[in-house]
């Protein structure tokens, strides 16, 4: 299958700072791909190069098989972009925000009206059509931006931190809409620093850190590869830390969060049984690992072996 996006040695430098450091990746039709990473990892810079709004320093980047530096208009005509910052037009109503945006794509007036009505319905804003955008809540603004990014019926949708700053309910509504879009066959690239978001909606995840892609795969694969089957969380009684350290150091991957130990193991129960004979616990529990564990392991924060 031909990739929709193909990046090779993609690099972006700002003076002496390297924001994106020679990354290679591909995005295939029909998938929801997530760029995951902390603030400053290079996610948004990568997105800005894909959307033809920031020139590359080095490497190549093709979208729809076209070079971004040479065919920005053709690419942007088929791209839907929902930026991180709300840049709705405060001078207009909700509906006008869509109709005026549709004009930028030179769509016929009738067609714009029809699509705008459908999209307001899709993001559940039909009742707000004639409100000024200043009166919308944060979640509604994000939904309107999502609707706006779909006006040109894009082949590829780019969502830069679509739910940052939203409450859980508003966030779930956006996720649900993204899943509906995926069902309809649209390819989606999202950036996020919420691990839960990536697990919920992405087929595949690229983990970025300091301008580089440090791992990629489906959320389940990444978890299996990098942290194994289970996470044992234990709080030992006062004075028993040396005992627990003696048991796990050199044998298991673990991290300490205050007085709590998180121990990664393929069989958490077996490790717990072994520890129980040596250590007294205030509490213990076993949970499934998540992407956050993968991320913490890969970026090496507070992890010991």
């Amino acid at each position: 299958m031909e990739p929709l996006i193909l990046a090779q040695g993609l690099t972006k430098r700002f003076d002496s700072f390297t924001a994106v450091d020679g990354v290679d990746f591909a995005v295939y039709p029909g998938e929801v791909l997530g760029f995951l990473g902390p603030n400053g990892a290079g996610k948004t810079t990568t997105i800005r190069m894909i959307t033809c709004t920031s020139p590359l320093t080095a490497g190549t980047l093709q979208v729809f098989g076209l070079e971004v530096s040479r065919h920005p208009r053709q690419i942007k005509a088929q791209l839907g972009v929902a930026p991180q910052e709300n840049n709705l037009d405060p001078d207009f109503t909700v509906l006008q925000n869509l109709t005026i945006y549709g004009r930028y794509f030179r769509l016929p007036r009738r067609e714009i009206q029809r699509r705008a009505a459908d999209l307001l319905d899709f993001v559940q804003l039909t009742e707000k059509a004639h409100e000024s955008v200043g009166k919308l809540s944060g979640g509604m603004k994000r939904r309107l931006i999502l609707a706006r990014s779909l006006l040109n019926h894009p082949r590829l949708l780019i969502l830069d931190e679509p739910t940052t700053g939203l409450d859980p309910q508003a966030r779930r509504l956006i996720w649900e809409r993204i899943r509906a879009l995926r069902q309809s066959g649209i390819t989606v690239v999202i950036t996020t620093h919420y691990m839960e978001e990536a697990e919920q909606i992405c087929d595949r995840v690229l983990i970025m850190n300091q301008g580089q892609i440090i791992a990629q795969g489906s959320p389940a694969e990444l978890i299996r590869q990098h942290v194994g089957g289970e996470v044992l969380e234990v709080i030992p009684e006062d004075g028993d830390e040396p005992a627990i350290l003696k048991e796990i150091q050199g044998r298991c991957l673990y991290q300490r969060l205050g007085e709590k130990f998180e121990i990664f193991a393929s069989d958490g129960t077996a490790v717990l049984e072994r520890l129980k004979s040596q250590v007294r616990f205030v509490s213990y529990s076993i949970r499934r690992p998540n992407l956050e564990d993968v991320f913490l392991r890969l970026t090496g924060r507070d992890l010991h072996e």
Partner: protein
Amino acid sequence: MNRGSFAASAARRLWVPHLSSRAWLVWRRDFDVFRRLFWVNFAVPMLEPILYLLALGFGLGIFVKEIYGVPYSRFIAPALVSVAIMYGAFFECSYASFVRMYYQKTFDAIIATPINLEEVVAGEILWGATRSTINATVVFFVVSLFGLTSPFLLAGILPLAFLGGFLFASLGMISTALVPAIEHFNYPFFLFVTPMFLFSGTFFPIEILPRALQTVSFALFPLAHLVRVTRALMLYRLDLDLLWSLLWMAGVALMAFLLSLYLMQRRLIK
């Protein structure tokens, strides 16, 4: 150096603006906002020339006999039209464009579509020139109501207003590309626009100024040329010498336009 970075640096050296009729889509957006606020936009520019005419033309005019053989109010009427052209475009492409660019992120939203940044900037400048033409028409209408000019001359005022407006819009856009924050517009306004407003032959004949200052005025102040041509038109004193002023304005307008495109590109495309 590999091929990618070579191409990128070559593109930076050889900057060429890519313009198309899409600029008018940006113009349409600004025009739609104007229509929404029609009365605020229409009534306010109407008020200003009336106040100037009352205070200067009829107040100060009592002490001024005649200038160029016409009453003082007829002398300043073309200046009021010219000043409306200047402020209309300069304000639109400085404060108003800056708000759209910096606070509302309107430019960012538009360049995610097939429209590029040069077309956004060109659309803003075309809109600034249109604002000048609208404001000039309002002021012209007011001064002709006071019997200070003939309504038929509007046909000459319109293209003049668009040319002058395009020039001041481009200058405003250059300042928008350069100011770090909105407060810094005080520099172009107080160091350039205000002296230009006072020393361009607006309220007294430019010939009164010492020779050297006249030269400075005509070298630096587009308004001096605009007032000169507008006044010649409204007092029926056209001559071939005015072509120099028209050429000067057209040339500076073109250079300022290209410079503003380049500077905005440098500011926003990183």
